[in-house]
């Protein structure tokens, strides 16, 4: 029997704001424990929540970027459950009126080869809502410690439809989502800092079956790779259970990324009776067209859209765009260099291959690069017009990186200008032909490769500074 996996992802993303979701103490990471608290965070008697406007701006932006419908009105609900990391023992969340519905994440699956774009799919989302994060529990041998610095941080919960069918798709979903949210400035999505967390709901069913199988919730997937590995492991486990005649129990399992295994977890809240009710302390949110329009104006081009545009407009190969697009600064750099209309592919190559390599080696960011877009554009034009040779260009590039000088300046200073003086050139060609009669004869007889000996002699005479194209032309012409 062949099985198909059905996967839904629940992704929690911390929004980038300066203060917390329902109080104005600073949000942050890595601070000394319990230094980012106030009466509201600690749920002291008498504390009350107040919404953070920027968090609403951020989630609306995320919703617009992901093509969601933004609810004209939404409200806050209390999700009641007891846990040491949850100070009020209820979490303020959105139950039946989330701020965003629908939407989708475009994903790209690995192609047949590294340099060939893979298949694209749109994974639909169910909803996105806003809630508050909980504190951090650290488990020791004898007891556990609680730090409430994280408690109250604005958290976006993104729920996908059960529309993923493989671990690879889940991996692609998260990388695409992460890039989109990063580029929107909505979140830094750093999983090591807990800014992006993912749980997976995994079930299997016989191929052709339309009903969903029993789903298992998978937790503790601490990196995008572990999400992929954990899901893959769970699919295999479920298939093995079913093929062995067993049935899948609905449970929550914790994945151990290091060991590559999973185990059933103790259930936290019997029957998950959260007793949702509208939070009487908070007023509902109304999002009008003017607000949406203001946010829409700040939404950047989506990564895949930009990639397609660069490939189409500039005829850049897929591999180059795959390097440039994930970092908008790099893509911006490219577009600034290519905009005046030079050889886009060459520009792309210089940036994606050479410049990034040099920057990495020198431990510098693109912003700190001595080479600016105009430098690259200029360099490419010098090669294109035959002023310098390709090897010459390499030297110019290296110099530019060291000094930040413009390419024309470097060319003059190093005397790299290719000889294009036809007088000299004709003379060198004539001399080379005379010095290589055998090669000349073989070429005339039809052997293309024999030309190289003659051309080599010309280059030697020119001390390497002749334009290879012109040399080729001249030799062919003189040989008739």
């Amino acid at each position, binding site marked *: 029997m062949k099985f198909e996996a059905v996967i839904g992802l629940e992704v929690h993303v911390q929004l980038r704001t300066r203060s917390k979701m329902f109080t104005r103490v600073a949000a942050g990471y890595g601070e000394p424990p319990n230094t980012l608290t*106030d009466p509201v965070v600690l*749920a002291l008697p*008498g504390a009350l929540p*107040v919404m953070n406007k920027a968090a609403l701006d951020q989630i609306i932006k995320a919703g617009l970027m992901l093509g969601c419908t933004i609810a004209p009105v939404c409200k806050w609900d209390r999700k009641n459950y007891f846990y040491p990391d949850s100070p*009020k023992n209820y979490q303020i969340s959105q139950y039946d009126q989330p701020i965003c519905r629908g939407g989708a994440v475009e994903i790209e699956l690995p192609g047949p080869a590294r340099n060939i774009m893979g298949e694209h799919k749109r994974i639909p989302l169910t909803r996105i809502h806003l809630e508050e994060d909980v504190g951090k529990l650290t488990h020791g041998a004898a007891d556990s410690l*609680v730090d409430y610095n994280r408690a109250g941080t604005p958290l976006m919960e993104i729920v996908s439809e059960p529309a993923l069918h493989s671990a690879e798709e889940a991996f692609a979903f998260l990388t695409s989502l992460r890039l989109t949210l990063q580029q929107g400035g909505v979140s830094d999505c750093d999983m090591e800092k807990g800014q992006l967390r993912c749980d997976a709901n995994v079930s299997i069913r016989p191929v052709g079956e339309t009903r969903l199988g029993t789903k298992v919730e998978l937790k503790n997937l601490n990196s995008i790779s572990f999400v992929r590995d954990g899901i893959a492991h769970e699919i295999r486990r479920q298939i093995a259970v079913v093929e062995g005649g067993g049935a899948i129990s609905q449970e929550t399992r914790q994945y151990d990324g290091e060991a590559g295994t999973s185990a059933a977890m103790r259930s936290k809240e019997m029957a998950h*009776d959260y007793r949702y009710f509208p939070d009487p*302390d908070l007023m509902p949110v109304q999002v009008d067209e003017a607000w949406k329009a203001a946010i829409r104006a700040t939404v950047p081009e989506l990564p895949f859209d930009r990639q397609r545009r660069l490939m189409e407009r500039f005829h850049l190969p897929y591999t180059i765009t795959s390097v440039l697009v994930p970092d908008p600064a790099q893509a911006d750099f490219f577009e600034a260099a290519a905009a005046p209309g030079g050889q886009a592919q060459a520009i792309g190559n210089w940036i994606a291959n050479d410049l990034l390599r040099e920057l990495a080696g020198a431990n510098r960011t693109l912003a700190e690069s001595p080479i600016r877009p105009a430098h690259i554009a200029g360099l490419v034009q010098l090669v294109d017009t035959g002023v310098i040779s390709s090897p010459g260009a390499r030297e110019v590039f290296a110099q530019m990186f060291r000094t930040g000088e413009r390419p024309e300046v470097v060319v003059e200073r190093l005397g790299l200008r290719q000889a294009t003086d036809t007088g000299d050139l004709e003379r060198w060609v004539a001399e080379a032909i005379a010095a290589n009669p055998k090669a000349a004869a073989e070429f005339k007889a039809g052997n293309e490769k024999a030309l190289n000996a003659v051309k080599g002699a010309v280059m030697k005479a020119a001390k390497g500074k002749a334009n290879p194209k012109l040399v080729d032309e001249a030799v062919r012409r003189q040989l008739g």
Partner: protein
Amino acid sequence: MTMAGPAIFESAATLSTLLATRKISAVELLREFTARVDAVDGRVRAFNSRDDAGALRLAAESDARRAAGRELGPLDGLPVAFKDVIAVDGQPLTCSSRMLANFVSPYDATVTTKLRAAGAIPWGRLNLDEFAMGSSTENSAFAPTANPWDLRCVPGGSSGGSAAAVAAGETPWALGSDTGGSIRQPAAFCGIVGLKPTYGLVSRYGLAAFASSLDQIGSLARTVEDAAVLLGAIAGHDERDSTSVRAEVPDYRAELGRRKGPWRLGVPKEFFGAGLDPEIEAAVRAAMEFYRRAGCEIREVALPLASEYAIAVYYLIATAEASSNLARYDGIRYGHRAAGATDAIDIYARSRAEGFGEEVKRRIILGTHVLSSGYYDAYYLRAQKVRTLIRAEFQNVFAACDALLSPTTPTPAFPLGAKVADPLAMYLNDIYTIGVNLAGLPAISVPCGFTSAGLPIGLQIIGRPFAEADLLAVASAYEQAHDWHRRHPQLP
């Protein structure tokens, strides 16, 4: 033991004048009250705790300001005692519960901040029914407060300590909180003025929450004018309370002088049925007659939904909200933690069992049930819908009335221990006050007589939303034409 001086039964307005005219200093004034508390509170048990040293320091600062001509206004130097549910930085915040017996607040409520800015001295934590749940202060985990008019009787609740302290001359005035009548009912039982503002007028930031959509902080005082001044000092929009309303806060005292009536006064006919003590009815009808003779139009109005269903609606909504609001009391970050708890569930269940008293547990259980899976629609949701109808009913009645008159309570103060066995019977005490909270209206109780047993009777006046100025004027008109507010209990 010395008798405290004459200041203890003066109105805050009079005390303010005495301070302004240098007849008494803030320090001397405070000492009169601390001496009074020392003398009588052993029998009244209104105070959970006091910070005499801290208060004296603030009083000295007030005197220094006055000497330098920099007094902060009419409240500068006046002590205010707080129901032990309102946060004062550095003072205990016990909610009269074992759960918070050792809790010291690290922050000020907004009302506290405002009072400090006016120069008032936050002094004294007053007893209450635990977590404001109750109508007699017998649910206090510490001790039941006694009614100064008859020490064998309850002072009412949940702000029983606040009402008793004012009535006994232990403080010029006090803050309380009112969720279903918890300021008005004890004010009536103790023969003083108790004012609950419109929901949203006074910030709830720093008020330990019982029922979020019903709670309000209000004033308990000897006179309507005092209640008005104290309200004016604490009212106003607060950014830290999202339910706080941007309403204009007039100078209530000045408005008292300007608004003279006559008014159109409604009398809900359902409030005069069976269960109302005949002496209370007589006193309230006499008050109605006073208004009629003063030129007011008295008309009978009907509140059939409120009178029939308000208690049921209240006990579903209030307990539901409370069950969630009190979840934070778990012994984890603060509060009582049970010893020897072995795991995370155990620590909650035992700490809360040990920390909460019976009435609190009962309401948490009820509230949890009405929100739980399968019951939410039938209980909580339905109650909120009936609440909408009750609000509309009041709104209709106010189309033709400026204010409503009713008894504050169906019975006078009852003996300690008389009603503890029957929670439902206790809840039915709130019959006249509770609908007011559901509708978010302002209401005041003023003394309007005594029973033949010498127990005070309260007249409740209910106003339109944010029309406290009118409400206070209606109340003041009655008060100034009578002497009830000049009578004080003789503590043996």
